[in-house]
């Protein structure tokens, strides 16, 4: 199992029946592949859809039915559509139970930077600032390091997406929470030691008393060609 799959599978364990969930582009999108059997989850696309289904079969795409990346998707039975004001009303108004987003950096209080690299990448924040400020629960799905440098840092060098801390960061090495206002190592992935996680993390990590080992396989090495995927929303 590669790092992306490992991360997506672990995040899928956070899903609950009836949740309204918004998935960012990249690794977050993969979470939809691992919804537990028998569970009904509503997936929102912020361009105006609840009940987003998989990509359309060849020849079945409709130009008026797309995901937030503009790619043709399908709609599941019970889907609903609405305008952008309503879509972000759902996001900001406490109706979105969970958002899963990519990340560039997370600081030791859980504050996320994921929308720009000054002078290099200025795509615009799109819906990211609303999602982090508004969702009931925010999970960041990202590789633990980028080109060998930690992405969970003392202080973000990149511009913040929100001053509201995220709830959970899931990487191919670990699950880290921020409920106490500081980075807390909750789980290590299968075959990963606490020492390995600490070494790959710049932020000070508290250790949860119930620290456990999860996940199904050794992560792929950092140099795997998947590293650039899912870093932006």
């Amino acid at each position, binding site marked *: 199992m590669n790092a992306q799959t490992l991360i997506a599978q672990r995040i899928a364990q956070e899903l609950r029946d009836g949740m309204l969930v918004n998935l960012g582009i990249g690794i977050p999108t993969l979470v939809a592949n691992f919804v537990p059997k028998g569970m009904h989850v509503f997936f929102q696309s912020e361009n105006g859809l609840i009940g987003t289904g998989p990509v359309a079969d060849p020849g079945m795409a409709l130009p008026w039915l797309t995901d937030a990346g503009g790619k043709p998707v399908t709609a599941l039975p019970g889907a609903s559509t609405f305008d952008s004001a309503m879509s972000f009303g759902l996001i900001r108004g406490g*109706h979105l139970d969970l958002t899963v987003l990519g990340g560039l950096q997370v600081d030791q209080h859980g504050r996320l930077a994921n929308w720009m690299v000054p002078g290099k990448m200025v795509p615009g924040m799109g819906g990211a600032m609303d999602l982090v400020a508004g969702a009931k629960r925010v999970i960041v799905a990202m590789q633990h390091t980028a080109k060998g440098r930690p992405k969970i840092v003392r202080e973000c060098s990149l511009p913040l997406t929100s001053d509201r801390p995220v709830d959970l960061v899931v990487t191919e090495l670990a699950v880290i929470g921020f409920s106490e206002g500081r980075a807390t190592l909750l789980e290590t992935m299968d075959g990963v030691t606490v020492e390995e996680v600490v070494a790959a993390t710049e932020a000070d990590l508290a250790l949860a008393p119930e620290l456990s080992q999860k996940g199904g396989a050794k992560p792929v090495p950092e140099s795997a060609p998947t590293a650039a995927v899912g870093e932006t929303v």
Partner: protein
Amino acid sequence: MKTITLSDAVAMIPAGATLMIGGFMGVGTPEPVVDELVQQQKGDLTVIANDTAAPGIGIGKLITAKLLRRVIVSHIGLNPETQQQMLAGELQVDLVPQGTLAERIRAGGFGLGGILTATGVGTIAAEGKQTVAVGGRDYLLEPALRADFALVHAFIADYLGNLQYALTARNFNPVMAMAAETVVVQAENIVPVGVIAPDHVMTPAPVVDYLVAKG
């Protein structure tokens, strides 16, 4: 979304709760839910709604039963009992311009702290309100409103909780369905998933907490 009996739905509501109740002069008010509030004698309630309807109709029944401590409404003119209770000091009546009321409720449901409106500037509706100038024009800062429960009337609900309203019975229902901790829906018709086309859903299923089962 869970289905619930009418009796259990109202039993969830504690005395002293703040309720948003859909409807405009009783049209689009979940009448069976109102009747059950009277039946269970839920008292000391605060109601946020467009109006207090008329005696014997919708929220007017709650007025007559003296279950309300406070109402936040735009109009009480067709219910003389509301005026009587207000003048007797039994009922606090907060009058809010109708468009401002709709936007304050919407703001509560859409995650906004409030909105700026020119309505009421220079009138007694501006008393105690912060005034903010934008582009050289004065606006009142009107804060968001939320409630413990929204009691919503729909024309059609599907098994998931997607809602469609009918004609002028829509009124405050869709904004209230967004603005409460717990959303209870009474629907005239309950239909299988897919009967309401995605483009015709007016309130998406995930915001609905309880759908009152047919008796």
